[in-house]
């Protein structure tokens, strides 16, 4: 038996659950009640739909930026500890991910609402109620909270495997710690950053449910729109067209990211 035949079940799985559905989506996207047409894509050009897409892209961009700003120092910190304590910390970061993100988002709802714990505390110390939930910032916060680990871990896994001798060599050659970071650590970690950015940006653009829960249904993202077409409106053709547009965007952003990756074959960015 050839070794590659072990991959047959996986190949079949991919065929049935990835390739065939994509063709079904393409079929629906280019048809309306059986006839081939571009109407679904024309409909997408209406301002409200383009508006939903640009809003999603903008929010996903902000989310990725914030995740990078918080995630990079965090990964740096985790990677700099001696192994024993770091493992402990890494586990602490992983544990929340074991719980379904919906449950965690519901937990945030009870914390953020007007009569929630945070506001009760703010009232108690005399600051008074703040409007925390049902705002754009609440949605952004929910996204950052949910996707932060996907930024930290790729960067961490690259940093932790990079050769410490290189940093020491740079120090020996007279570089101060800032210069070591800028010229050695940062370039070495770029594959992790690229991987982290793609792992945050793409799911963030397509997110649904989180915006509805924390934004109170007032901030519709592209994922919500697609869900709405399939579940509420029942327009599978338009929904498929939207999904195709989404897929195209994902491939484009993957392509752009790929160009930034100095080490495309890197085995570090597996997370």
């Amino acid at each position, binding site marked *: 038996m050839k070794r590659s035949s072990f991959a047959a079940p996986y190949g079949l799985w991919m065929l049935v659950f990835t390739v065939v559905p994509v063709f079904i989506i393409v079929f629906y996207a280019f048809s309306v009640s059986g006839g081939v047409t571009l109407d679904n894509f024309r409909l997408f050009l209406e301002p409200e739909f383009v508006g939903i897409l640009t809003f999603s892209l903008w929010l996903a961009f902000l989310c990725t930026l914030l995740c990078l700003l918080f995630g990079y120092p965090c990964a740096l910190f985790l990677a700099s500890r001696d192994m024993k304590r770091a493992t402990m910390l890494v586990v602490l970061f992983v544990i929340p991910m074991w719980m379904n993100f919906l449950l965690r988002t519901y937990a945030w709802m009870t914390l953020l609402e007007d009569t929630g714990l945070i506001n009760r505390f703010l009232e108690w110390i005399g600051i008074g109620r703040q409007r925390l939930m049902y705002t754009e910032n609440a949605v952004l916060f929910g996204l950052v909270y949910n996707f932060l680990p996907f930024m930290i871990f790729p960067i961490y896994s690259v940093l932790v495997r990079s050769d410490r001798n290189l940093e020491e060599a740079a120090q020996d050659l007279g570089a101060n710690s800032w210069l070591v970071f800028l010229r050695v650590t940062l370039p070495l970690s770029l594959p992790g950053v690229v991987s982290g950015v793609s792992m945050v940006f793409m799911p963030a653009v397509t997110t649904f449910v989180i915006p509805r829960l924390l934004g109170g*249904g007032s901030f519709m993202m592209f994922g919500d729109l697609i869900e709405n077409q399939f579940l509420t409106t029942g327009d599978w053709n338009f929904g498929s067209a939207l999904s195709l547009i989404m897929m195209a965007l994902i491939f484009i952003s993957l392509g752009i990211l790929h160009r930034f990756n100095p080490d495309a074959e890197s085995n570090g960015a597996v997370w």
Partner: protein
Amino acid sequence: MNRINVVPRYLTKVLAMLLTIALAMGVSMSALADGEVNVYNWEDYISEGALALFEEETGIKVNYMRFTTNEDMLVQVRADPTNYDVIFPSDYIIERLISEELLEELDWGNIPNASNVLGWLNNPSYDPDGRFSVPYMWGTVGILYNTKMVNAPIDSWTALWDEEYKNNVFMMDSIRDTIGVTLKMLGYSMNERSQEALDAVKDRLIEQKRAGIVKAYQVDETKDKMIAGEAAIGVVWSGDAAYAMGYNEDLAYVVPNEGSNVWVDGMCVPKGARNKANAETFIDFMCRPDVALLNFEEIWYCTPNAGTIALLDEETLQDETIFPPQDVIDRCEFFQDISSDITRFNRIWLAVKSAR
């Protein structure tokens, strides 16, 4: 009892979507056994005790699924009606399902308890010959408000556009209901479909959202948030109002003067249902006065069951939130099926939801 129930709803939605995709691919689900009935009902809309009692007495296993709005349910039933044996659509959706020939005619010999249904609901406009549906509950759409958080008692839909209640209003995340109450506020019928009226509705809803009056668009969450005092005003169905008022005595419910929607949710069997006989047994069981009482005391919508009403005490019967007086019913109207115009309604709703 239903506080935590909202969580799995999204999971069931996602699951339902995956299942329909699997079905579309021709992957057939395993045939369902004889002793089962697949029930597709609204979220928070039945007594768990009644379901357990049904399983215990009949030995038929209930596979229970939930939906949030009529439109969500309609999409799923259209995708494959045979997935469900009993569904709980509202009046205008029953009308739609009948016209699309998606319902089975009921065998009244299997549903003797249907005779308990109040006379005025026997041959309703949405099911003129009374062949396809048995009324389950009925009620109104109105405003639930917190008397401690408003200046004066509310009696008009215009309160929903009052800047006084900025960031203090829960609207309903349901197309027909929200567009309907806006039409009423503007003096139209809830079934108005002219583009002029719909454009006016769209403008008013976007204006309301941009002014920051709307706190959130939601359905099942509103009752619990109103109990907690999260907002001053919420658009709700009467049963949710009665339920919330039972937990927070500052809450009051009103069907505004302009009039509103009165609705009936029926029990129907979709075309080609796999367990039709079990479905009729289930419907009959739900019409038994003691079972209907269990449901009534759980969800607080008006029961159409004369046998159950006979079991209620005077105080409950006098409760105007649960049993609206005749003058309230007189200023309400049923939704009618809007057939293909639903696409225009959808567009308006998307424009409102995506407005910023």
